[in-house]
């Protein structure tokens, strides 16, 4: 579903990501793990169409990712951002936020679709006309997830979707993400530094260090703490 081949990403002259080749199958949940500065968020930005200074080949399904603004990308993948306090427009109600993608693409039956989407992410109807500042962090992240699903994309990009939330709320949001994936056969591409989150939600992971893939592993290897690379072992020891 997602194929990266020899992807190099530059900021100015410095290459932040070097010759990364990754492949995620349809319906899989994949995690890109690394410390801050490893280039994992940069890869996510390229997949989201926010950066154009990259080389190599990226395919999403049958679609070859273009450099720069790519209109086909909209229906293929959407993103859930890290900070639910910054990812919702502060002056728009939940209803307006969820209706906007439908309005942009001229999709009808908005009332019904908005209600369905809110039900799907477990938001009660009374929240529909609230503004973001009247919602809790977990509720906001549910709105953000609902927004990403409004256009029914097969791929969801997750940028540390729970790191800004309280521990108790984290579990709720992770359960929701897992349930949505099972219901809809979504493909997840997640960026995180949180290994317990990976072992809960993902099937496979790749470890990124200084812009290079150090190791690719299955989640079973993570659970058995059986990473082959020394850096992978180091990450494991940090997370306990």
């Amino acid at each position, binding site marked *: 579903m997602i194929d990266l081949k020899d992807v190099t990403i530059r900021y100015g002259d410095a290459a932040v990501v070097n010759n990364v080749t990754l492949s995620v199958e349809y319906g899989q949940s994949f995690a890109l793990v690394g410390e801050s500065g490893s280039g994992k968020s940069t890869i996510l930005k390229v997949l989201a169409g926010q950066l154009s200074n990259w080389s190599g080949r990226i395919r999403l399904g049958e679609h070859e990712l273009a450099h720069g603004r790519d209109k086909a990308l909209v229906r293929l993948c959407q993103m859930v951002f890290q900070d639910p306090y910054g990812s919702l427009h502060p002056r728009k109600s939940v209803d307006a936020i969820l209706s*906007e993608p439908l309005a942009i693409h001229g999709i009808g039956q908005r009332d019904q679709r908005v209600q369905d989407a809110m039900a799907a992410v477990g938001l009660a109807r009374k929240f529909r006309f609230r503004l973001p500042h009247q919602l809790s962090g977990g509720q906001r992240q549910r709105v953000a997830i609902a927004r990403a699903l409004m256009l029914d994309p097969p791929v969801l990009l997750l940028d540390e979707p729970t790191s800004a939330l309280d521990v108790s709320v984290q579990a709720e949001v992770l359960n929701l993400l897992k349930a949505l994936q099972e219901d809809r056969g979504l493909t997840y591409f997640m960026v995180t530094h949180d290994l317990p989150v990976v072992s809960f939600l993902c099937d496979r992971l790749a470890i990124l260090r200084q812009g290079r893939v150090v190791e690719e592993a299955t989640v079973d290897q993570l659970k058995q703490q059986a990473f082959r690379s020394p850096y992978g072992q180091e990450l494991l020891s940090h997370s306990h």
Partner: protein
Amino acid sequence: MMTVNWLMSDAPETRWQAGLGQAYRTSRALFANPLALVGLVIILGLLLVAAFAPWIAPYSPIESDLSARLLPPSAAHWMGTDELGRDIMSRIIHGSRITLYIVLLVAVISAPLGLLIGTMAGYFGGWVDRVLMGLTDIFLSMPRLIMALAFVAALGPGIENAVIAIAITAWPVYARIARAETLTFRNAEFMSAIRMQGASHARIIVRHVMPLCLSSTIVRVTLDMAGIILTAAGLGFLGLGAQPPMPEWGAMISSGRAFILDQWWVATMPGFAIVVVSLGFCLFGDGLRDVLDPRNRT
């Protein structure tokens, strides 16, 4: 009580209940501020006086009565009469229409223009920003009254030209504010999110950027209205705004200047009118700033 609960509900059921609730909270905060309330009362008074001028004014603002020249304030003429025997209060009442006309027209022209240019500069950045802000700086560097004078001199005296001249000199401030505001959130995640949904640049600017710049622009326009009134009066005083016999306040001061020592009321009364209305807009603008600041919202 039911209605208040319905308005203050934190779980509104429809779009317009949510909107009304927000408006109710805003107006309650405004009414809690006595100075803003004074400003609001003055502005509402101006609106009423302007709307019902022909019915309120006891005399004609234009017909002269040379037998009643320069009468001091009395029961018959509350604010006295001017050098052509016209009742000054009637002229001030009719003049409120001209003032309101100028202020509203300037606001309607310059605020959207400044907002559009500022948000475009902030949103696109790069060379668009440099070109638009260069233009803004050029307009901003010229003194408002001098620039307005130059325009009126080129276009010819008259209210319409005064309005155009003031509007042309008023928009750069709004552009600067809107740009600065846009820069604070142009890289926010909700902007990335709306871009990822495939919204066009025009849609993002109009529906997502402008609403966030709107409250500071409204506040600034309200505060500027005092300045607009003064500039219009200044143009009128110099004989470049409204032409006689129109009862424009600045022009009235100008014609009263000749008698200021012996017949003080001729120049003073329209001066009072300008001060009171300017003050009204200032106070209301200040109150509006406190209310619309999103940091104060709960």
